């Protein structure tokens, strides 16, 4: 699979199955004289060619199709696409529809983050293999996580009919909008989830993480009034500030021989990091006051930007934020005059970025004269994070190469999981191979 030339007498680690990530991939490290000369995070998820599958389809068809890129974050794919089309076609959505779109996205952030924090990542901090094992030592914690996750799924179901691949998002609005009374049903569960989210923040802040710091280039959306989600400009911690549709002016995708996912870098060839840690760092002042207070109490605001293992704390802060915002939206909700604005198909370039749970998700479509898709480019967060993860693995490796093979592998796996890579999106298992070429 990797076909690397291997020096005689080398020390070689060959492990299959980095688990608790969404998708299939592998890691290969080449080591010479204790230094990593190559770190390749490879994604072997079978290619599904979504950018080709949408050709000839209508914008509304695209919303159903791109959801299937990812079972964990289908709403993100629907959101980047629907905003892109509405921006091109001049469709101005009702403010209540805008609020419902954010509520739907809050639901997805809650279920996706709770899944990662409790079921995929937390077992690492307890030295356990799964949430099932974690439940044997701390059933209350796992039940708390499942309850939070359930509320996220319930929100998506209320607005879209089901938690995975919801059906209601249409260009111009929704095929059907909920009544205020439908949303009110979920208020008691959201109040419980808010308590659970605050408890989550205190719980993860007490975890002990490896001492590993670096100073990555961070990129996220930023918006004048809202924490980044559906809208905003693309900003970085080194001064970038561009329109969301201008992603291609600042970044580019390239194919690398070791992966089915295209890798993105900035135009200067630099790796960059997207996701909760970037958003908390670049737009933390926009967090809901309850989330900001929880972040302050944890004392982790700076550490989140520098230590990738604190990604779990960034996710916990965003759960508090998303639950609190969901409560506000529901309390302020008034049904829109109509669920959908009328629109007419037309040609042109539709481009937009929103914040998926794992980071900035860019879509660009060219529509032909009949308003059908003639060309598509979809850049998921994990393919953008690939290069930054490789750089971090290279920097981290000297800390663990002295350990025995199983222990070193375990530590690499944990580092990779801390980014919550969604490999199904990027094109699933991770297979670790470390070669000592000295």
């Amino acid at each position, binding site marked *: 699979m990797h076909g690397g030339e291997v020096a005689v007498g080398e020390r070689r680690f060959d492990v299959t*199955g980095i*688990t*608790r*990530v*969404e*998708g299939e991939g592998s890691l290969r490290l080449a080591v010479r004289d204790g230094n990593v000369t190559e770190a390749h995070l490879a994604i072997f998820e*079978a*290619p*599904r*060619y979504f*950018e*080709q*599958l949408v*050709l*000839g*389809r*209508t914008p509304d*068809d695209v919303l*159903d*199709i791109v959801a*299937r*890129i*990812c*079972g*964990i974050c*289908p709403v993100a794919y629907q959101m980047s696409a629907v905003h892109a089309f509405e921006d091109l076609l001049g469709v101005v959505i009702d403010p209540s529809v805008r609020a419902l779109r954010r509520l739907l996205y809050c639901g997805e952030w809650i*279920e996706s983050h709770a*899944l990662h924090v409790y*079921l*995929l990542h937390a077992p690492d901090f307890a030295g356990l*293999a*799964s949430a*099932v094992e974690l*439940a044997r030592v701390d*059933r209350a914690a*796992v*039940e708390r996580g*499942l*309850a939070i*996750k*359930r509320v996220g*799924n319930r929100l998506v179901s209320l607005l*879209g*009919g*089901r938690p*995975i*691949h919801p*059906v*209601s998002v249409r260009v111009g609005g929704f*095929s*059907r909008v909920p009544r205020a009374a439908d949303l009110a049903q979920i208020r008691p569960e959201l109040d419980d989830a808010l308590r659970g989210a605050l408890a989550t923040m205190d719980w993860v802040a007490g975890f002990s993480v490896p001492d590993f710091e670096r100073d990555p280039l961070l990129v996220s959306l930023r918006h004048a009034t809202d924490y980044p989600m559906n809208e905003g400009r693309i900003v970085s911690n080194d001064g970038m500030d561009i329109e969301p549709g201008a992603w291609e002016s600042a970044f580019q995708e*390239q*194919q690398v*021989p070791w*992966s*089915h996912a*295209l890798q993105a870098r900035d135009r200067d060839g630099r790796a960059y990091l997207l996701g909760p840690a970037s958003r908390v760092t670049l737009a933390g002042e926009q967090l809901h006051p309850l989330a900001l207070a929880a972040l302050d109490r944890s004392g982790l605001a700076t550490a989140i930007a520098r230590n990738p293992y604190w990604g779990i704390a960034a996710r916990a802060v965003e759960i508090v934020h998303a639950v609190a915002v969901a409560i506000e939206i529901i309390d302020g909700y008034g049904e829109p005059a109509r669920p959908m604005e009328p629109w007419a198909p037309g040609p042109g370039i539709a481009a937009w970025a929103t914040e998926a749970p794992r980071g900035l998700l860019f879509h660009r479509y060219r529509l032909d004269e009949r308003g*059908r898709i003639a060309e598509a480019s979809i850049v998921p967060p994990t393919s953008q994070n690939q290069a930054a993860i490789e750089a971090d693995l290279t920097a981290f490796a000297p800390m663990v190469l002295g350990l025995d093979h199983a222990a070193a592998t375990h530590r690499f796996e944990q580092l990779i999981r801390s980014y919550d890579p969604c490999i199904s999106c990027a094109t*699933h*298992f991770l297979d670790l191979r470390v070669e000592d070429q000295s």
Partner: protein
Amino acid sequence: MLATRTPTPRGAAPRRPRLGVVKFASCDGCQLTLLDLEDQLLDLVAAFDLVEFAEASSHRSSGPFDIVLVEGSISTPEQAEEIIRIRSQATLLVVIGACATAGGIQALRNWRDHEIVRRAVYADPAYVDALATSTPISDHVTVDAELRGCPIDPQQLLELLTALAVGRRPQIPNEAVCLECKRQGTVCVLVARNEPCLGPVTHTGCGAICPAFARGCYGCFGPREAANTGSLVAWFGRDGRPATETAALFSGFTAYARPFRSAIDDLGGPPGPAAPAGDTPSQEVGGDARR
């Protein structure tokens, strides 16, 4: 459905069935549905010995399995080999979701020239090892049971696992989506609003979500038994709807399942760039062609 329990010698503690969850080409949504059974998850995993589920546990097993849930379609040469190995390790093989039961949305490439598709996405396609087609699991190995849907329905998954845990036959209805709409009292979008809807020919199980959300069914549970697609296609064409639009309706997440596949062929193929001249859109490629 076969008997699932290994006979337990009188007086011995029952052995928990060894359950595996594996995936091929897919979005992970169907295996995620297991984790979405939040209220039952901890009890369910106590009823089974969950020996393989890479997305949720670092403990791995390559078999043997009493039951294996298979998500995803076969779309690479490695997958075509791996499914045969998994079949050899499994007493019961249950396919879950539209990718595993029908090839998934990615089976739309079966109507296209794979080389053109691959080159359009990857600058250097040589690094990308994929089959020209995306095919259902049953094209490759014998399948014991299936759950339809894109994604599968959580309650159907719960029913399947509960039935397997106690060794009874799961109750999975196979009527049309239409009947569910009638039971729910949902206004028929096809009759009332002339909204094209695949409900009459689509397998039930989702809870008739789309009509309840004021849109036509898009067929994600695939064709029901003896689906009369010809009659529905004729209905859609009554008002002068172009064949290409009707073809697009069937060209979704279960497009490659018959008779949806035949309907698409009859209507001139799915939307998108035309297949190269001389290419037979639905030629059987690889595996056995029982579908």
